[in-house]
């Protein structure tokens, strides 16, 4: 790949490099269980679908290139966080996160939501999952 640059690199932006999309790194932060969401009192109609997301676990990492869904990433979750991914890929930042190019997003599965950290490649996250 070529033409990537550090966010905030004004010189690179003036050189027109910023016309390209950035890659975005997606890290799984947390997978909630049915028990956590329903405080132990899990409704009968949801319990049969498994307590936690069967697709993801904390610490998994994916790289999104050219806005395509990374192999192995849940396509439902990808749809849910797509708006944030596009915003980051096209150099958008989020005012409620102190570091440019980073945000936290979640899938919309209300029974067992998964939280993701999204980082534009090159941005500093400052979060250690270890």
């Amino acid at each position: 790949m070529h033409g990537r640059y550090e966010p905030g690199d004004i010189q690179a932006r003036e050189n027109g490099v910023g016309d390209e999309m950035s890659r975005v790194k997606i890290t799984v932060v947390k997978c909630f269980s049915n028990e956590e969401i329903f405080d132990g009192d899990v409704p009968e109609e949801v319990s049969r679908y498994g307590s936690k997301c069967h697709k993801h676990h904390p610490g998994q990492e994916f790289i999104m290139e050219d806005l395509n869904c990374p192999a192995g990433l849940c396509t439902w979750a990808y749809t849910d966080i797509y708006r944030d991914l596009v915003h980051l890929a096209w150099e958008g930042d989020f005012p409620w996160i102190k570091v440019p190019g980073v945000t936290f997003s979640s899938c919309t599965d209300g029974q067992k939501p998964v939280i993701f950290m999204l980082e534009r490649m090159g941005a500093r996250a400052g979060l250690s999952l270890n």
Partner: protein
Amino acid sequence: MNKISKIKITVLKGLSRSEVFGEDIPHIIDKPGGSDARCGLHTAGQTFISIDLQRPEGFCDWAFTDIHKDLVFLAYGNKFNRSGKIQYAACTDGTNPVIFKLERME
């Protein structure tokens, strides 16, 4: 054309930052409140009625966008699970997600 049912939206739970991140809350989050802070707009137990797929007054714009596909699916009589008329959906605020119960009203 199929009937569009009303949907009752109940706020089931707002998750706190400590519930999402544990003790290691990223210092880069620039939002008011501490580790116990939850969504500033919605609290557990609030109820709303969506009529003709419209956003109920007072309901978060962002959250409505996030749960809209589930709301439409239910409102047109489709089934997500055994109950046939209930779905649980979350907003996509990764720092303070809110869980909603959507219920088709006959």
